[in-house]
C-alpha cells in the first residue's frame, strides 16, 4: 500500500465548451479525512463523477493507491477496486429491507448468476452485516423496509452499504444535507469513527461547521479550479475564500 490513496493530476472535464473541472490536481493520503467545499457549480459532484467512472474527463490522470489507473476502469470495476460513493440524494433501494440493502452491497465470493441465485450469507457475512448495522445505529432493525426510514437513517444506511464493501476510498457527497442538527451530530460521530489507516475519506459539504468538525484538511474548489488547500482555520480566514462565498 502506498501512502497516496488518491493521486489526481491535471484533471479537466468539459461539457461542450464549458469546463466543469479545469486542470485540477490533488493528493489524498490514507488515514485522512478530506473536506471539499466550494459554491454551487464549483465542480465538486463532477469530481466524484470522474472518480467513479460516471463521467469521462478530457485529460488528466487519476491513480488509486499509487498504481491503479481509475480512468481506464468501468463503474463496476472502480467500485470493486475499492472506491465507494455516497450520492447527494439518498439512494438506497426502498423496496428492499435494511438488511437486504446491506446484503446487496456485500461482496460475495461467487459472482456468477447461478451463484447469486443459490447464495446464502455465511457466518462471516452475517456477522459483518450485524457489525455495520451497529455502526450506523440500526442494530435490530435489519428487517425494516428501507422505504420507511427517516431521511437521516436513509443516509446512514447508504453509508453502511459502502462500509460493507470495505472501501479504500470513501466519497461522501453532501452527507448531512437536509438533516436535523441532531442527525448531523450523529453523522459527525459516524464519519469520525470511519477513519482508518487503510482508508481515505472525501467529504463534500456546504456546511462549514460540519466540515470543520470532521475534516483534517480542506480543499476549496471554485469554477473547476483548486482555490486553496489547508486546515479549516486557515481556509476560513482566507480573503479569496471569503470573496467566493460572500460573492455568491
Amino acid at each position, binding site marked *: 500500500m502506498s501512502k497516496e490513496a488518491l493521486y489526481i493530476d491535471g484533471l479537466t472535464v468539459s461539457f461542450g465548451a464549458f469546463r466543469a473541472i479545469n486542470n485540477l490536481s490533488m493528493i489524498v493520503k490514507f488515514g485522512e479525512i478530506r473536506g471539499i467545499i466550494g459554491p454551487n457549480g464549483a465542480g465538486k459532484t463532477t469530481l466524484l463523477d470522474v472518480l467513479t467512472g460516471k463521467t469521462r474527463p478530457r485529460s488528466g490522470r487519476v491513480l488509486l493507491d499509487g498504481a491503479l489507473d481509475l480512468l481506464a476502469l468501468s463503474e*463496476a470495476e472502480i467500485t470493486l477496486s475499492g472506491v465507494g460513493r455516497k450520492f447527494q440524494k439518498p439512494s438506497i433501494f426502498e*423496496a428492499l429491507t435494511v438488511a437486504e440493502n446491506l446484503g*446487496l452491497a456485500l461482496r460475495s465470493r461467487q459472482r456468477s448468476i447461478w451463484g447469486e441465485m443459490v447464495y446464502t450469507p455465511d457466518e462471516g457475512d452475517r456477522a459483518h452485516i450485524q457489525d455495520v448495522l451497529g455502526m450506523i445505529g440500526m442494530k435490530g432493525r435489519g428487517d425494516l423496509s428501507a422505504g420507511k426510514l427517516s431521511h437521516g437513517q436513509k443516509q446512514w444506511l447508504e453509508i453502511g452499504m459502502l462500509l460493507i464493501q470495505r472501501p479504500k476510498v470513501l466519497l461522501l457527497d453532501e452527507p448531512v444535507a437536509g438533516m436535523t442538527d441532531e442527525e448531523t451530530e450523529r453523522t459527525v460521530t459516524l464519519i469520525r469513527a470511519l477513519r482508518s489507516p487503510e482508508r481515505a475519506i472525501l467529504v463534500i459539504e456546504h456546511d462549514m461547521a460540519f466540515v470543520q468538525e470532521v475534516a483534517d484538511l480542506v480543499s476549496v474548489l471554485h469554477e473547476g479550479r483548486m482555490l486553496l488547500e489547508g486546515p479549516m482555520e486557515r481556509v476560513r480566514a482566507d480573503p479569496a475564500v471569503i470573496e467566493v462565498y460572500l460573492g455568491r
Partner: protein
Amino acid sequence: MTAILESISREIQGKGGPARRGLAAERLAGMLVVAALAILVAGTQGLMSPYVVNLIGQVATFGMLAIALDLIWGYAGILSLGHGLYFAIGGYLIAMHLVKVAYLQTGTPPDFMLFMGWDSLPFYYAGLENFPYALALIVLISGGVAFLFGLISFRSRVSGVYFSIITQALVFVAMLLFFRNDTGFGGNNGMTGFTTLLGWPIAAPETIAALSAASVLAAAASLYVCARIVRSRLGHMLVAIREDESRLRFLGFETLWIKIAAWVISAVIAAIAGMLYVPQVGIINPRVLSPELSIEIAVWVAIGGRGTLVGAFAGAILISTLKVVLTASAPELWPFILSLLVIFVVVLLPNGLLDAPAALRGWLEWRRQRAAS
C-alpha cells in the same frame, strides 16, 4: 414529448412497488402440483369433460406467460410488449414437430406444401420428428433470441418505454414475416392437421388430460423457479435494477448480465408455454405474434398485480377465463369489459387485484370512522 415518455417510463417500471410474496408463490406452486394430479385423474377417468380439461390446460399456459412477464416487469421493471415472440417460438417449433410427424405417418403433405407446390419439407424440418430434439431447439432458440436481443438492447442501455416499443416492433415484424406463405411455416393459414404427440392420438381424452396436467405442472414449475429467484440475492438485484439501476452499478454489479439472465429465463418460460399451448388448440397461425396478444399479457399482469408472481398468475387465469366465457356469450362486449377492468384497476388498485382486500379493509375502516364521528 420526451418528458412524457420519461414519465410513462417511470410509471411502467413500477418503481417503489411491492416485491414480496415469493413465499406465497411457492405455496401456490405446491397447490398446482396437486391440481395437476387431480386433472390427470379426472380427465382420464372421464370425471371432467375434455372441453373443460382442455380449457384448464390452455389457461395454465397463459398463467405461465404472465409469470414470465412478471419476473422481468414486476421485479426488474423491464416491460416487454413482445413476449408473444417467445410464445410463438415454442408454438411454431412444436407445430413443426407435429406436422412432420403427421406427414411421416399419413404421407399426406401439409397444406402449405401443396399450396407452394413443394415436394418436400424445407431443410430446417430435418430431424424435427424427434421430440427431444424439438424440445432442445425450443429452449435453445428462444433462449438464444432472447440473449441476442437482450445483449443488444441492454448494452446500449435502452430502457423504459423505449425498450417496450422495440419489443413490440420486433413481434410485429415477426408477424409480418410469418404471414408470408413462402417461409415454410404455413403463412396466413398457419399449421394444423396434427395427428399424434409422442405416439398418442392428439384428440384422445387421455392426451388432452395429460397435456392439461403437464401445463399445470409447468406453471407450477415456473412459479417455483421464479419464486426462488425473487427470494434470492439475484431477485434483490432485479428489484434494485427496477428501483435505481445506476446505483446498483455503483455497488459493483454489471447489471447487463443480471438483466440478460432474467430476460432469457423469462423468454424460455414463455416458449415452453407456447409449446404446451399449441397441441391443445390444435393450430398455430401468425396471430400469436400480433401486438394485441403481447399487450394482453401485460394487461393480465397489471390487473393481477405486479411484482408478486401470484398476482400475475391470478390475473391471467381470471381474465382469460372471463374472456373465454364472455366471448362465447357476448363477444361484442368483451373489449369494453376489458377496458373497464383496466381503468378500474389503474385508478383504484394501482398494484392490481391483490390489493383489493387491503383496499376493501381501508374503505370499510373509513366508513366505520365516518359513521362513528
